[in-house]
């Protein structure tokens, strides 16, 4: 599947970061989404690790078991 639109520099950085992030994990990104500040197996763990890393206002997301289109049926 190919995208036909140009990618912003910010999106390119985010894409690169997400490709390196562990799957089926909770990931905390810096507010500018330029780096991973913490990774955990639970939301609470990654929130705590973010604080420990000195980033009190991260953006937390959950990575799926594999990247791809989502229809929210994965168990």
């Amino acid at each position: 599947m190919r995208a036909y639109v140009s990618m912003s520099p910010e999106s390119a950085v985010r894409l690169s970061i997400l490709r390196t992030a562990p799957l089926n994990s909770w990931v905390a990104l810096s507010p500018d989404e330029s780096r991973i500040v913490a990774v955990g197996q639970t939301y609470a763990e990654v929130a705590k690790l973010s604080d420990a890393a000195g980033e009190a206002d991260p953006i937390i997301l959950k990575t799926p078991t594999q990247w791809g289109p989502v229809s929210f049926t994965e168990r």
Partner: protein
Amino acid sequence: MGAGLFHGAMKVPYRIYPDNFGEHLYCAALDVSLALLVPYSPRTKRFEAIIDSGATRCMFHAEIGRSLGLDPKRGYRERTHGIGGVEETWIHQVSLHIPGGPVTIFAAFKENLPIAGLLGMNGFFEHFNLTFLSEALACDLERVKST
């Protein structure tokens, strides 16, 4: 993109995600946080939720509920009919912090949700005029309902 106050419309860039083929996909998503309906209750940290007009209500990973002190399974049990079949979710009333200020919603919490959260018709879309701008890879959000 924060969940604080804003005036008028705001443009929310689509978020990029890897796909299975070494390429990428875009989704509309927003950083939000949740809190209990208790005065001065602390919010969760911001987390990324997918904007999903196909979702009847907002749904969040059960771990986020637990981080607030909720026991997800002490909520109202609801069976949600999705593309993949029937799923068990648990409903709690919480404060959802979105652009323009927080709103009180009935949110579903689900174990093993593959993402952190979904922003659905009830609790999210009802508060905005939302336009998907495919060429700009963004959506315009205009808050139309304050509570």
